[in-house]
Structure formats: structure tokens, C-alpha cells
């Protein structure tokens, strides 16, 4: 029986119709063989648009549907569902991308229209040869892996665990808490970061549904949506968690000091340590790299003082395996390497600090107990906060880091409050867009903080006059005045850019995610699915996707959690139907396919001397299909006939 094809051309408002003459596309399509129905509509993805497809399937007895609209990566699932609802096998649907690949990238209307016709013709050619496939489901493992124990991961883990689903949380550092734990106050409400975060950290540790693995890293990820197998390396802690009472005597007695990562290297920690006093878990670990005993076989002072006898010198890294249905990546952000910021004096002048260094300086648990002082211990009389250092700068990071304007305001407030120093902000634009943010900016104006609309060009200690002697001098143009200022100050704080984590690329690879051009993890859709990734079942939360402040991070974490939960509670998941299949009549038993399959999905039967594809393991990449010298493997939904038909129809060749 000849196929009966329906072609639906979308205007997408003016997105397509503004460039492509959709009526000409419809007229062309109507003339092609087997096309029995061709129409255009303003928004095909809308409810009435989908209704058009459903009605036409019934009314015109369509056996194939082609929708010419946006990218299949956007709306293929939408229209497949619509077809299924009208009783048509969803694999008998084909999408023609005339928006991303045509109307949005061309200006010449004639050329774009001709190209759109070609694209639809190729889709129709493929549709003609489509075959129905069986939709297959497998059960979803009722557990979620959360990678990263910052506030995004914490929020997500608690939401999931509170819904009754098991969570495994993996954190690289000794404690959970992330960057938020390093902060003293949070903008714009100025509530104490520890006061709002530590209770959540404790909840994570005590939650019956959460298994917390700190000082651990994900080593490998296998499997697919609903059925991931994850290997986690639990680094040797050399402290028995079951025995240790977290009394902290060992830390007190340990003679070895190294710079504390948590304190941005501004104060030391011991070789046996917890990241900070409120660390969760509170039980310390021994950092093997710094420990004197591991270095030269002598010391063991911690062991001598440990009353419960919790030190285990023979502890080993352990690799544990977890089966999970979904993975939530919440690995957070890094910071730009400030050593590339030498024109603003970082690394050259001791009283030039990064934002996070100032956070620690200002923190009650930090190197000065929260006193804002210069390196010589004196109180600054004037402080300059330089905005956009490394952000909005093509020499460094092109994007806006999104948190700096607000933390700069917070810093200005805290400096005023604690030191009464004069505070200058040098900014390009004040971006105070959140709830209560603009109000906070206004509050700072009331507090007498000075704002100069101009980016700091450089910081120098080369005095041009007596007033500048012994000071750091900030040079910037007040662009509102058109005057170049030189402002002598005692302390300079760089609102330094947020950056992707240094190992973002490797982590992206590990979880099958992509990186956006800015180096952060790429979401599936920037607006509608900012918490999903290209890999089904792998979700994103927090600043690993883009710079975010705490409210946005928490919201993102909760959103990712609910998306992961909807997968978990669905209970089953549809798996690839477009798998490979061996045509036994043609198989010569050469085993080449077995070698090229990245998933080991092809087995060879010694008795029949034939290859066989395990459909539940096959991901449908088609590499075996292209490799088979006998043409004995068919790639469902992308078979040779379908692809060749598409190539034949790619252009009007004559």
C-alpha cells in the first residue's frame, strides 16, 4: 500500500514565515508523490497546531507525518506524542528543520525558501520509507546520585530524599557546604551564611534516605537513563569514621601546617583536618600529601592523642559501585585565576584581594577572626572595590559573572559597618536585578558609599604626589563626568570573575554532557530545560551550568530535583527503539561489528556462526551498520534506504 503523507509547515510566528515563503513550501509539497495533505499553520507546536496533526491523521488516513518547523532536538518528542495519540506509530513521524537550519541563518528570502523546500522534500523522502518501531520500556532504579555538596546539591538531595527516594551524595572535599560555607553574610538580606546553611548540611548527614560520601569522587559512569552504574572512589581518610568522636584533639596536636583551601590559603590548616569548624561530617581526614608520617615515617602524634583509637594508617582508597536511576550534577563553580589580573595589582601588592579572599578576611572563622584589616594589621581608611575584574572582558571571560555587583555592595556595607572606611565602587553597569537587590543598592547609597561609573584601568603603587605615597592608586575614568580619576586607597578588592571548575571538561565528558562556549556545562535548552543535559537522566543544578547567586542556585537545585524525581516516580523509562538488527541471511560471521560496538552489545554465536545484537544494550549509534562488510546489519530508523533517499532528495539536482 502506498504511504499517505501529511506535510505541516509551521510559520513559528515570523521566525520562519518572516524569511521563508511557507505557502510556496506547502504548494511544492502538495505536488510530491504520496503527499495527500499539505497545510501551513502559525504555531505547529501549540495545542491547536498539534490538533491539526491529530485530526488530519484520522480524517486523511495519514500513514506518515512530516512537520516542517524547528529542530527535532526541540520538538520531535512533542509531535511523536501527538502522532501516537492519534493512533499513528510515533516512528512514522519525521521532522524538517526549516528554522534553526534555514530561516534563522539566511537573509535571502528566495534562497531560504528554495532551501526550505529541499529540506522538506528530503524529510518526505525519508518519511516515505519509515517503519513502525516498538516503544520499549525498562524499570528505573529508585535512587539518585547527587554529585557535589554545595548548596545546589544539598537542596536537591534534601528535596529528593524528603520525597522518599534514596540519594547518594558524593563530595570531593572533606566537608559539604561548598562556596556558600565560605561566606560570612549573604546579600541582600545580610543573613549569616552559616546560620542558614549549616542546619541543611546537618540534615543531609542525618537523613535516612541520604548516603553521604565526602572525600570521594565519581570515577566512572556507565549505563543509560534509569539504569546508571557509577563507580565512586572513596579516598582513604586514615580515620575510622565508626570510631572517631570528632573531638578534634588530633587536629589541635598535629604539628604539620599547610595552607587551608577553605580559607583561600590565607591561614593554615593541619595535615589532619576538617575544612572548617562546622564541617559535615565533623570527623577529620588525614591529607596524605602533607602528613609528616607519610612523608618520612615519623610522627604519629595524632594517633598518640586519639583516645578512641580511630587512626588507621593502613586505610586504602575504596571504589564502590552504585546503581542509580538519575544523576544530578551540582559541581559548582570555580574562580578565575587572579594571577592573570596583574594590571590590578593582584600578586604584586599584598593589600589587593580577590572577592573570596575578602570573604574569608571578613569571616568570624577566617584568618583575622572577621576583622577587616590590612596586611600590617591596621584598619583601612579607604577601600576600592573594582567591579568586572575578568568578567565582561574578552581578554578573560566574556560573560557577566552575575554575583559581583551584589557582593560588592555587601562588601561595601560590611566595610562601612566594621571600619567606617571610605568605600569606592568602580563599575561599568550596576546589575541589581533580583528581589530586594535594587533596594539594597539604594540602602548603600544612603550609607554614603561612593560609586564611580567607570572600570578601573589599573592599580599602582607609583605615587604621583604626596597624597598617593604609601597608597594603592586606582586609575579610572568617571565616564559620567569625563574626568580621569586617580584614587588613593589602602585596600583594593577585585570583584574577580566566576569561572567554570578547572576540571569541567573532564567532568562533562564523564557524564556525557557538553560544554557551552563559556566553558560551563551545557543545558538541554537555555530557557525550558536549563536543568537537563544532552544525556537523558543526567541533570544540572547550580553554578556548574552558569554563574548563579544563592537564591538562583537553590531554585535551580530544587528544579533539577523535581525533574529527576519525575523520572524516578515514573518508574519506567523508554529506551532506544532505533537499535541495530542483524539480518541473519547475510551475516558472514566475520565479527567486525563486535569489534566496533562501543557498548559490547553484539555477541557472536559460535554454534550458528552469526552475530546478534542485544537490543537492551544497543544505543543505536549505527557504527556497526556502517562497518558491516556484508550489509547484514540494519540500523532501525536510520537504515541505508532511508538515508540514501534523503540524500537523493537533498537538492533538486537538475
Amino acid at each position, binding site marked *: 500500500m502506498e504511504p499517505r503523507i501529511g506535510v505541516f509547515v509551521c510559520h513559528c510566528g515570523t521566525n520562519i514565515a518572516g524569511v521563508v515563503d511557507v505557502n510556496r513550501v506547502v504548494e511544492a509539497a502538495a505536488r510530491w508523490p504520496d503527499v495527500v495533505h499539505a497545510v501551513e499553520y502559525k504555531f505547529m507546536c501549540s495545542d491547536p497546531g498539534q490538533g491539526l496533526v491529530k485530526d488530519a491523521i484520522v480524517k486523511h488516513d495519514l500513514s506518515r507525518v512530516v512537520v516542517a518547523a524547528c529542530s527535532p532536538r526541540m520538538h520531535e518528542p512533542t509531535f511523536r506524542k501527538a502522532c501516537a495519540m492519534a493512533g499513528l506509530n510515533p516512528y512514522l513521524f519525521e521532522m524538517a528543520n526549516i528554522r534553526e537550519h534555514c530561516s534563522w541563518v539566511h537573509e535571502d528570502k528566495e534562497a531560504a525558501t528554495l532551501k526550505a523546500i529541499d529540506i522538506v522534500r528530503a524529510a518526505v523522502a525519508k518519511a516515505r520509507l519509515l517503519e513502525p518501531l516498538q516503544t520499549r520500556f525498562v524499570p528505573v532504579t529508585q535512587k539518585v546520585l547527587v554529585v557535589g555538596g554545595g548548596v545546589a546539591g544539598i537542596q536537591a538531595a534534601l528535596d529528593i530524599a524528603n520525597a522518599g527516594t534514596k540519594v547518594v551524595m558524593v563530595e570531593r572535599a572533606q566537608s559539604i557546604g561548598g562556596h556558600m560555607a565560605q561566606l560570612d553574610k549573604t546579600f541582600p538580606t545580610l543573613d549569616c551564611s552559616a546560620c542558614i546553611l549549616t542546619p541543611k548540611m546537618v540534615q543531609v548527614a542525618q537523613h535516612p534516605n541520604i548516603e553521604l560520601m565526602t572525600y570521594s569522587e565519581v570515577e566512572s559512569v556507565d549505563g543509560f537513563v534509569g539504569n546508571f552504574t557509577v563507580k565512586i572512589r572513596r579516598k582513604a581518610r586514615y580515620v575510622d569514621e565508626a570510631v572517631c568522636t570528632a573531638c578534634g584533639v588530633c587536629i589541635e596536636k598535629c604539628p604539620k601546617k599547610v595552607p587551608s583551601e577553605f580559607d583561600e590559603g590565607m591561614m593554615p590548616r593541619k595535615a589532619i583536618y576538617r575544612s572548617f569548624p562546622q564541617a559535615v561530617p565533623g570527623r577529620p581526614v588525614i591529607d596524605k600529601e602533607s602528613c609528616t608520617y607519610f612523608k618520612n615515617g615519623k610522627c604519629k602524634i595524632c594517633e598518640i592523642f586519639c583516645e578512641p583509637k580511630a587512626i588507621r594508617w593502613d586505610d586504602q582508597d575504596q571504589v564502590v559501585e552504585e546503581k542509580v536511576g538519575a544523576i544530578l550534577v551540582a559541581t559548582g563553580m570555580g574562580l578565575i585565576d587572579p594571577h592573570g589580573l*596583574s*594590571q590590578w595589582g593582584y600578586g604584586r601588592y599584598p593589600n589587593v584581594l580577590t572577592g573570596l579572599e575578602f570573604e574569608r578576611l571578613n569571616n568570624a572563622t577566617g584568618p583575622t577572626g572577621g576583622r577587616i584589616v590590612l596586611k600590617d594589621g591596621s584598619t583601612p581608611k579607604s577601600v576600592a572595590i573594582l567591579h*568586572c575584574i575578568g568578567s*565582561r*572582558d*574578552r*581578554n578573560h571571560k566574556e560573560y557577566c559573572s552575575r554575583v559581583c555587583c551584589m557582593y560588592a555592595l555587601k562588601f561595601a556595607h560590611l566595610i562601612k559597618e566594621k571600619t567606617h572606611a571610605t568605600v569606592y565602587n568602580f563599575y*561599568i553597569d550596576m546589575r541589581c536585578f533580583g528581589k530586594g537587590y535594587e533596594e539594597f543598592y539604594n540602602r548603600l547609597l544612603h550609607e554614603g558609599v561612593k560609586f564611580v*561609573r*567607570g*572600570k*578601573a*584601568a*589599573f592599580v*599602582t603603587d*607609583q605615587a*604621583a604626589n604626596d597624597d598617593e605615597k604609601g597608597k594603592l592608586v586606582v*586609575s*579610572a*575614568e*568617571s*565616564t559620567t563626568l*569625563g574626568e*580621569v*580619576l586617580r584614587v588613593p586607597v589602602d585596600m583594593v578588592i577585585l570583584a574577580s570573575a566566576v569561572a567554570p571548575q578547572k576540571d569541567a571538561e573532564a567532568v562533562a565528558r564523564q557524564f556525557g554532557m557538553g560544554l557551552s562556549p563559556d566553558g560551563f556545562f551545557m543545558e538541554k535548552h537555555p530557557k525550558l530545560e536549563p536543568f537537563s543535559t544532552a544525556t537523558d537522566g543526567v541533570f544540572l543544578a547550580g553554578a556548574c551550568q552558569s554563574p548563579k547567586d544563592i537564591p538562583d542556585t537553590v531554585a535551580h537545585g530544587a528544579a533539577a530535583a523535581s525533574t529527576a524525581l519525575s523520572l524516578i516516580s515514573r518508574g519506567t523509562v523508554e529506551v532506544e527503539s532505533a537499535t541495530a538488527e542483524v539480518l541473519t541471511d547475510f551475516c558472514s560471521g566475520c565479527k567486525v561489528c563486535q569489534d566496533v560496538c562501543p557498548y559490547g552489545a553484539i555477541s557472536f554465536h559460535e554454534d550458528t556462526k552469526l552475530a546478534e545484537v542485544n537490543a537492551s544494550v544497543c544505543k543505536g549509534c549505527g557504527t556497526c551498520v556502517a562497518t558491516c562488510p556484508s550489509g547484514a546489519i540494519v540500523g532501525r530508523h536510520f537504515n541505508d534506504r532511508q538515508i540514501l533517499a534523503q540524500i537523493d532528495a537533498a537538492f533538486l539536482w537538475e
Partner: protein
Amino acid sequence: MSHYATPMMEVPDMIVESGGRTLDLCFQCGTCSGTCPWNLVRDFRVRDILTRAQLGLEGYEGEDLWMCATCNACVDRCPQGVEIVDLVRTIRMLIAETGAAPKTLRAVLGSVQSNGNPWSGDRNARMAWVKDQPVRTFDGTHEYAYFTCCTQAYDPRNAKVVRAAVRVLDAGGVSYGFVGGSEACCGDAVRKTGAETNFQNLAAHNVGLLNGLGVKHLLVPSPHCLNTFRKEYPELGGKWQVTHVVELLADLVMSGRLALKNAVPLKTIYHDPCYLGRNNGIYDAPRDVLRAVPGLELMEFGHTREEAVCCGGGGGRLWMETPVEERFAVLKLREAQARGADAVVTACPYCISMFEDAKTALGLDQLQVLDVVEVVAAAL
């Protein structure tokens, strides 16, 4: 009379069409103004020119336009990648077409047109600096062709540098010959003043000459020649390898082919020429050479390397009047003196000229101005 200003979009359109494609990227952060060394001595706001040009408001074409010494410090720091020096050049070009270029520049450009050099020097006297020193002329078999900078050829002070170069290169056993009297100005400063046609004529002449001679590898004493030959000539047909003398010296000294035996007991302070440092990233070669000179002490200015302050001689400023108190070279000599230096050492004919002028103006007889090449010659 109203004080409202009305944008004239023909202005930015014309600038963009004439090659100033990055004009519209400026988002008025003021980094350029805050960076520009002119503010050390006078009011000058690069951003003001750019904003006015973006909107086509009066003032972008004013006298300030001719102040820029093209030192590139603002371009290096611009967060938006605005090619400010190119924009200044483009706007100058458009203004020059209307005949509104400064008078002093017109004389210089006239000389370039008729003599092939900006110094009103006789075209036939380009090799007069040789005096009685024997020099080789490039014959196609030499590894390097030495392209003399006009300023070395015609300015008596800089002629001493090229004569020192001959002694040094000969001592190092370098295979080279001088391009000689037919060469014309590289055209860097000419182009930067907006005289695009003049530049194209000079470039066409030099490309024809050097390609005709079979030059493969150019040796240049001026960072301005270096920058122009390296970055601007290739698209005009001049595709040679280009090396600055100081790079070759570093190579000779480091590899031991040039032995520096004599002590030169000077406290020197090195000035980074903008076109050598910021524009071509050559910071270490001159310092390596100076450190290899026995008995010599090397000091640094407060702002150095990427952040070095210009001598004030680029972009045609060499030929324009600057009041003594507004000369960067004056500021730098004062700083050198305050730091206790005996000699300011550099590697650019323009810098040498600017510093010598400043030295005379300040009457600083005891402070020497030297090229790296001269220091090396003294150490042979």
C-alpha cells in the same frame, strides 16, 4: 541657542566602512581613558572620542584626535576588543581627506612623498651615514637584509646606532647586507597619521624592491619597521621573515657566538618601546642582552614591560610639538634620574630621538641615552 546634540549616523557609518569595524563594540567603561598615559600630563579621554564617533557627535574630529601616540596600552586592556589605534588611524584618515590634518604633519608627508623619508633628507643621501665605515650591500646570498630606518639614516644621533650595529653584527659573524639607498620609509608613522595613500605608495615601492632583491629575511633596527613589515606588509605582498636587531643580538649572545668581554660599568634602566614590547611581545631579549654585559647594572621603571609608559614618539607625534612639561620622555628621564640611573637604554630610533630631545630640554648632561646595540658595541 539650544544645547541639544543631534546624532549624525553618517559619521559612524563612514568610520565603519573605512575599516573601523570595532567602533560599535565600545560600551563606555572608560578603561582606555583610565589607561592612557596622556592623563599623566594633560586631560585626554579616548572614550570621549569613541563615544562621539559612535553617535556622530561633534568633537570626535577635534585636536585631541592627533594626540594619540598609538602606544596600544588601551587596546591591550580594552575588555571589548575595540581596536582603538586602528579607529584613531581611520578617523585621522577621514579627517585628513578633508585637508584638516595638522600643518606640521603636512610638511612631513610632503617629504615622504618626494624624498621617501619623513626627514626632508635627500633620497640619494640615504647611505650617507656610512661615512668611511666599510659596509656590505645585500646581494641575495646574505642571510639577512638590513633595512635601515629613515631616522637612523638621516638623524645624526641615530646614525651612530646603525654604525654600532655594523660593528656588532660583524663581530657576531652575521651574514647580512644593507638594502641600501633605494629603500623608502616603511610607512608606519605615515599610516598612523591617516595618510593611507602615501603609505600604500611606500609599501608598493618596498615590496617591489625587496622582492626584486630576493630578500627572505629582513633585519630591522626599528620596532615600527618590525611591526609594519610583520603585520601590515604580508597582505600587500611582502611576506618575509622579519627580525628586530635586538632579537638577533639576544640569540648571538645567548648562544655564545658574540662574546661580551669589556665591562660597561653603567647603571642602566631599560625603556620598553611600545612597538617592540606591547605590540610584538619582545620584553626579554633586550634584557637578556643587557644582563650579559659585564659590569652593567639593569634597573626597571616603576611601570615596565606590558605596563611601560610610552616615550611619546609614535603615531606621528615625533613630528608634532609637545610642551616640555607634557612630554612622556621628560617624565621618564626624571624617573630614571630619581632611580639613580646613568643611562636610559632602549631599542627604537623614535625613543632615542624623544629621549635625546628631553635630555637637552632638561639639561641632564650626565644621563646617557643609549640603544642596546651601542651598549653591546661598547662591550665588545
